[in-house]
């Protein structure tokens, strides 16, 4: 009888632990949605409304579409975005990359940009990723101040090289996509 009791207790504890963790996982998920995702959707929704109603969207789209529908254009775009002075300014929260992403998406839907350019475009609009966050990111990895001093310019210059490279690799991998 005692053996049975201890088995039951173990099973009960185990199940309780698993359920508790999964419940906590759900709580964390809802937390992120309410604190981070929904506010951002609201913010982008406002931007989408404004740029569509004012015509800024068309202007931006007309500038971006020709660039985004050829390999050369995408390479130019990736180099511009990777310019070391510009890239940290374009970085924060990936807000600009996300707005450009939404704009290019509508252009793809309208048929102004061929869909196979979606993949290289994803890399062309993103060589600045995290360029605003280098000191903080390095501190999270417990880097010394000297490492940050060298790391910031090194990463910014590296993007000028790897930005266009990423577009070319993505272009090669987009062969046969949606055609």
């Amino acid at each position, binding site marked *: 009888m005692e053996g049975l009791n201890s088995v039951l207790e173990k099973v009960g504890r185990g199940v309780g632990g698993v359920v508790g963790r*999964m419940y906590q*996982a*759900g709580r*964390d*998920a*809802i937390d*992120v949605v309410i604190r981070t*995702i929904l506010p*951002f*959707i609201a913010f982008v*929704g406002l931007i*989408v*409304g404004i740029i*569509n*109603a004012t015509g800024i969207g068309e202007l931006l789209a007309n500038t971006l579409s020709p660039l985004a529908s050829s390999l050369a254009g995408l390479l130019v775009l990736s180099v511009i975005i990777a310019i070391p002075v510009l890239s940290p300014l374009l970085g924060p*929260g*990936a807000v600009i*990359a*996300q707005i*450009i*992403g939404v704009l290019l*998406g509508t*252009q*793809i*839907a309208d048929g102004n940009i061929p*869909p196979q350019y*979606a*993949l290289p*475009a*994803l*890399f062309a*609009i*993103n060589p600045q*990723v*995290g360029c605003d*966050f280098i000191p*903080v*990111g*390095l501190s*999270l*990895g*417990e*880097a010394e101040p000297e*490492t940050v001093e*060298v*790391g*910031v*310019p*090194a990463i910014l*210059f*590296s993007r000028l090289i*790897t930005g266009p*490279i*990423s577009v070319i*690799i*993505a272009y090669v*991998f*987009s062969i046969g*996509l*949606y055609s």
Partner: protein
Amino acid sequence: MDAAAEAAEWFIGVFQLGGEWFVAVAGGILPTLIILLTAVNALVSFIGQDRLDRFAALAGREGVQYTFIRYLALPVVAVFTLTNPMCYSMGTFVPERNKPAFYDAAVSFVHPITGLFPHANAGELFVYLGIAAGVEALGFGLGQLALRYLIVGMIVIYIRGLVTQFIVDRMSARREAAAATA
């Protein structure tokens, strides 16, 4: 009066457009995302921090074969389990001179991963989703795009790690030389 009414309509139209977009996005992606977030949170809590730390310790070793762990496997695992921005804390396990390159690799993976695993960077989904929405509107499936985005992302972060490492080594050497002559 007509002009004023037109202006008023235009004004409210801005917010209606935004609102329609909000509902489409919130209704379209959030339900799946919430369940996925829950599943991954639970998985990470079952794996536990200890096992992650033990794996991360491998990334600090010398040798070419360990660059694959340092600039490919560890960034991918870190971004998947710890998500943006806590994934960069895995840099703790990387030798000092490799930290910028590790950060560069990890941060460059926070968008390519979102095509298949949106939990990893839930606050910045629209880089991928924005473009993907256009492809979807044309009637194509997104599986191909998401998978290729992930694979190209992995190739790019490894290259980025190596290139940044090369530049850091050059700059550090030059600094040391300057310090020695000064």
